[in-house]
């Protein structure tokens, strides 16, 4: 399969989900890569981070008009970073729209012989495997979960990956990368796990000490970037080396482990806790019970060595937790202002001495309909 696929030089990149944390981080990373000449980002909301030369196009959550952008800008690589994997931020219905319908439309936009797209990178999640009692200790990419998905988010992820898999089978001449990431951890990221680990004590289920594997946020960005630079064909688990017990994680953070959740009727207790502000999604309840480990050797064999081990990622996060109160008062949040952005990008008065994005290729942008919704 991999032999038939020609090498893809990614020059014109489209990032979907630009306003998600990952989309923004990846776009910033790609901006520093001189081999990438054009970066277009689409999302339904304004970007939340400062971007130098990335074009932002606002587009509806279902990504129905994306095909026109791809054709107009002659995009050769599409990176889909928009999957919702944390069910506490998004209601199930909206997550389904985004994860299943959105993926369907994005994949459809890359489909077809005359499509300029040569590579599709899909950021998925280890929630694909679920978290069950009968799991193997280390999931490798060819393993299936022992039972069908039980939660809406997991169902969405399995369905979305199915769409991508169908696409890969129809388009064997295109490089299709699916990256299943373990729980992310890092100083600038907020997930339900980082929130849980920020509490004064780490909540646990009484009588369970699950195995936890993380991946540092910089490594996720690094993997996504290397999927653009090099061709990773197929499915890859993205996880750091090392699987810790939750008690070890708590120890590294210097916090006690608080077994506040009962082993039986955990879901019943999680409901009221939700109201009190301790929001634990269903997927996380399963992880707190059974834990999960991934086999990351396929990605390492392909040449990507994560910079942080799970332990180091936890330590980095611990460091951040200690300095956070100091930093928060100093930082000013970024706000996207269209007029300012457009002035900075287009005005001839702005000087761009030797910046990699200083020279803009003509055409493309005007056809891309920046105000399409």
């Amino acid at each position, binding site marked *: *399969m*991999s*032999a038939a*696929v020609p090498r893809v030089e990614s020059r014109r990149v489209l990032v979907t989900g630009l306003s998600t944390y990952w989309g923004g981080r990846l776009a910033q990373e790609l901006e520093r890569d001189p081999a990438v000449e054009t970066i277009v980002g689409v999302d339904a909301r304004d970007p939340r981070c400062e971007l130098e030369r990335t074009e932002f196009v606002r587009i509806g959550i279902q990504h129905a008009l994306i095909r026109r952008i791809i054709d107009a800008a002659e995009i050769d690589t599409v990176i889909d970073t928009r999957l919702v994997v944390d069910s506490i931020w998004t209601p199930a219905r909206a997550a389904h729209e985004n994860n299943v319908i959105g993926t369907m439309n994005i994949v459809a936009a890359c489909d077809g012989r005359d499509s300029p797209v040569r590579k599709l990178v899909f950021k998925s999640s280890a929630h694909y495997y679920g978290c069950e*009692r*009968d*799991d*193997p*200790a*280390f999931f*490798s990419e*060819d*393993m*299936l979960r022992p039972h069908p998905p039980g939660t809406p988010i997991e169902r969405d992820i399995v369905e979305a990956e199915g769409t991508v*898999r169908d696409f*890969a*089978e129809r388009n064997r001449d295109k490089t*299709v990368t*699916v990256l299943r990431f373990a729980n992310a951890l890092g100083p600038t990221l907020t997930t339900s796990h980082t929130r849980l680990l920020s509490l004064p004590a780490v909540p646990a*289920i*009484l*009588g*369970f*000490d699950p*195995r936890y594997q993380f991946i540092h946020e910089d490594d996720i960005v690094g993997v996504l970037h290397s999927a653009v630079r090099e*061709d990773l*064909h*197929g*499915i890859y688990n993205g996880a750091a*080396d*090392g*699987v*810790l*017990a939750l*008690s*070890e994680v708590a120890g590294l953070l210097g916090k006690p482990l608080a077994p506040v959740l009962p*082993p*039986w009727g955990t879901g019943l207790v999680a409901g009221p806790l939700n109201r009190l502000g301790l929001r634990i999604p269903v997927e996380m309840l399963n992880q707190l*019970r*059974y*834990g999960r*480990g991934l*086999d*990351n*050797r*396929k990605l*390492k*064999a*392909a*040449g990507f060595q994560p910079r942080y*081990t799970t*332990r180091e990622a936890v330590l980095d996060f611990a460091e951040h937790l200690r300095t956070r109160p100091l930093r928060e008062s100093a930082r000013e949040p970024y706000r996207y202002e269209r007029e300012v952005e457009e002035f900075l990008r287009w005005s001839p008065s702005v000087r761009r001495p030797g910046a990699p994005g200083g020279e803009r290729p003509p055409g493309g942008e005007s056809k891309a309909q920046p105000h399409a919704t």
Partner: protein
Amino acid sequence: MVEPTTEQGRAELEEVLSAAPAGALARREPDPRELLPGLEPERRVTDWGRSERVEGFLDRTLVEFFYRYWFRVEVEGIEHVPGDGGALLVSNHAGALPPDGSMIQRAVREEHPRRRPVHLTVEHFFKGYPGLAMLVPKVGGVPAHPANVHRLLHDEEQLVLVFPEGRKGTEKLVNARYRVRRFGRGGFVESAMRARAPIVPIAVVGAEEAMPAFAQLRALRRLTGLLYFPITPTFPHLGVLGMLAYLPAKFRIRFLTPVRTDDLGERPWRDRALVHDVAAEVRATIQDNLYDMVGKRRSVWLG
């Protein structure tokens, strides 16, 4: 990007790898063993959840007591346990809360010149039961999933102890003692063949009298969510403590001549008949040795 089931998937992956791989695979020739993450020296728990601290503490206290003074374990044939490389230890299994696993672990640690750690495969049940889920992995218990056994045997080259009788062994009542039950479906042989690791049969005498079960209560099993609910001399009337109150039976552990699995040709696990033959052979060896050992002992308690 086909996604077959686990077993199928591995078979197909192997085909891809063995049949002159093309492109990315050929370029790098990945040996899965080289890419295993090393254990950071600061870590106290392995990636499997095994804790040297907890294990060492139990080893010095409870296991030491039972091994040396209570069961007075005697070991024969420790030289059959290889000094390096993976090996699958296969034993008979008995007792309501079976002591044989930790006694074999201890025997290898105590008697073997390399003092190798033994990973114990346990039912998935233990991962889902509060308390046990915390303790069992810490002392070297690993859920009995074929992928886990393969990683341990082949990639990490460890000693893995399996009880192919599984629950059928520990459930049996006292009048069925030393009658080795069916050896599952031969899954353990398949695992050893895939890893090209030898099988070391083990016959254990004593465990079957240390905690005999006189009856199994189905209603209470359902109520407690346990694997089974036996009536033993001390359980349930002495409560949780009764689970550890073993009778002082004399233990003998006999390690037997290893069965090689690396000389059976290419992919021998495809041959179901061969798998069953090897499984039956291992079972028969253990059963014969049990008859021999039980026949030679004069007393259950004094040996």
